[in-house]
């Protein structure tokens, strides 16, 4: 099936309420279709209750929905068993769970391998371990904005306990071959973690093929509510991990002096579960599956190819990402002119350096006048900003409800922005 943005758009109430809205910030969060909104409000209106522990009808029904969603997620990403799916808040929590629990077993001098293109959520949790003498290394990116696989391979060594890498960069759009990376890790006896925040919503992702140890992603970036996210982990690994949060539901038996843990995945789901979130995620997956993840990938490929075709119409445009659409998701980061990192010496010397560039915030604010919503800033990837030599960028990230006409409108307004604000 081909994605039909015009038709799909009708499923999203935000667009009937804001008919002019051109929403191009989907890498941040996506809009919600009626089916998801209704799944959540129907849940509240029919069976809302606590799961797992209620011996009454609505609780049994809510439990079935919650565990049913787990099953749906496990099938969606090709897991062997629903028990490999842990419901958490988001990608960030999932990676922190791993850094806290796997971190317990590391010792001084052990290494963690990341890449230069990671989101803060796949950096800071690991940085915390530096206090314990853990060394963080970074696989480099190449000048074409793709990952340097040789460098990754070279930096994998006997001390590399964990490698954590994104499948798709939220800044560059680069798609990493995580199957290859996971296989390098496996050969090296290194645990592999895939940050799927920007891939699971946008293309087919199958953990049985990637053969990674863990995969994390967020519901809110794939049409589902905020507050629900997923950690996939191989069962053998989850089984032997220490729990992360302690509390209700994650226990076996508790006395005043001792406690045992529940089986996975419940061991990792302390506290009252976000059932409505899981129900919403289930509805979102139904919606995405009806379109087909392959079709979604094709649509985004056509979007980025369209961008490549028209982007040169804008003077002084710099774009940051691979120009090969095979290796590129829909994410498009750009600037007008050079938006260099701040350097006080240089700054004072060159009198006033803004003359040849427009700050991405001004770009975004200008586009907002035409109700075009784009992101501007460091995209929670400050180190990468330094690496590519900018202080920040503007970013466009289309999804299933965006079409070429919207991109054309965006580029038209961008040209106007260049004329009005540039000097």
């Amino acid at each position: 099936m081909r994605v039909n943005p015009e038709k799909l758009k009708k499923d999203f109430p935000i667009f009937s309420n804001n008919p002019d809205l051109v929403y191009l910030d989907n890498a941040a969060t996506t809009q919600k279709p009626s089916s998801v909104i209704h799944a959540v409000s129907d849940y509240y209106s029919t069976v809302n209750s606590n799961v797992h522990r209620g011996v009454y009808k609505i609780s049994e029904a809510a439990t079935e929905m919650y565990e049913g969603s787990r099953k749906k997620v496990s099938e969606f990403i090709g897991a062997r068993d629903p028990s490999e799916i842990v419901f958490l808040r988001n990608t960030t929590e999932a990676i922190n769970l791993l850094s806290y629990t796997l971190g317990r077993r590391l010792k001084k001098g052990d290494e963690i391998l990341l890449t230069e293109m990671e989101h803060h959520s796949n950096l800071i949790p690991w940085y915390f371990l530096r206090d314990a003498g853990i060394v963080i290394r970074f696989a480099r990116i190449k000048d074409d904005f793709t990952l340097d696989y040789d460098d990754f391979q070279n930096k994998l060594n006997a001390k590399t306990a964990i490698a954590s890498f994104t499948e798709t960069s939220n800044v560059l759009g680069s798609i990493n071959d995580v199957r290859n990376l996971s296989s390098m890790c496996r050969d090296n006896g290194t645990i592999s973690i895939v940050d799927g925040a920007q891939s699971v919503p946008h293309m087919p992702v199958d953990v049985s093929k990637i053969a990674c140890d863990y995969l994390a992603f967020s519901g809110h970036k794939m049409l589902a509510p905020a507050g629900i996210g997923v950690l996939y982990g191989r069962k053998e690994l989850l089984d032997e991990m220490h729990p992360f949060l302690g509390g209700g539901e994650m226990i076996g038996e508790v006395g005043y002096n001792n406690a045992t843990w529940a089986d996975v995945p419940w061991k990792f789901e302390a506290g009252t579960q976000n059932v409505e979130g899981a129900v919403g995620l289930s509805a979102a997956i139904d919606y995405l599956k009806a379109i087909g993840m392959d079709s979604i990938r094709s649509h985004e490929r056509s979007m980025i190819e369209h961008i490549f075709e028209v982007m040169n119409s804008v003077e002084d445009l710099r774009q940051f990402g691979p120009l090969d659409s095979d290796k590129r998701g829909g994410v498009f980061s750009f600037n007008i002119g050079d938006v260099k990192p701040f350097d006080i010496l240089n700054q004072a010397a060159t009198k006033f350096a803004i003359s040849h560039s427009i700050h991405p915030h001004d770009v975004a604010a200008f586009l907002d006048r035409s109700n075009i919503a784009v992101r501007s800033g460091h995209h929670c990837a400050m180190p990468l900003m330094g690496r590519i030599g900018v202080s920040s960028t503007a970013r466009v990230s289309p999804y299933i409800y965006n079409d070429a006409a919207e991109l054309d409108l965006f580029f038209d307004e961008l040209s106007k922005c260049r004329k009005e604000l540039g000097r």
Partner: protein
Amino acid sequence: MQEGTGKMNDDVNIEVLLDHYRSPRNYGSVENPTAQITEHNPLCGDTVHFSLKIENGKILDIKFVGQGCSISQGAASILTELVKGKTVGEAKAIREEDFLKILGIRLGPNREKCALLSLNALKKCII
């Protein structure tokens, strides 16, 4: 939502289960057991203790004591009758679905845990 969830009287077999609950079969402890196990259901503290006498791979005797709801205790009693005299292999081959079918009552996911407590305990014990 109204279906399949703990309506105790909907099922003919509920009476059988309740009878086992009220007059449990094989209640007590086997003397000099060759295997035994205590298992809890963290949902509610339902507990079963099985003691078995296994010889040449055959379950010659099995008894249980326990405490808990009618479903967990009735199911434990029914299970002892089911596996007594069977081989360990045959007992291990009983799947959760099979046992629920034998119990013949419809349960939601939460009460299922009560019903399956004894089967899971038995399997752990005769590994």
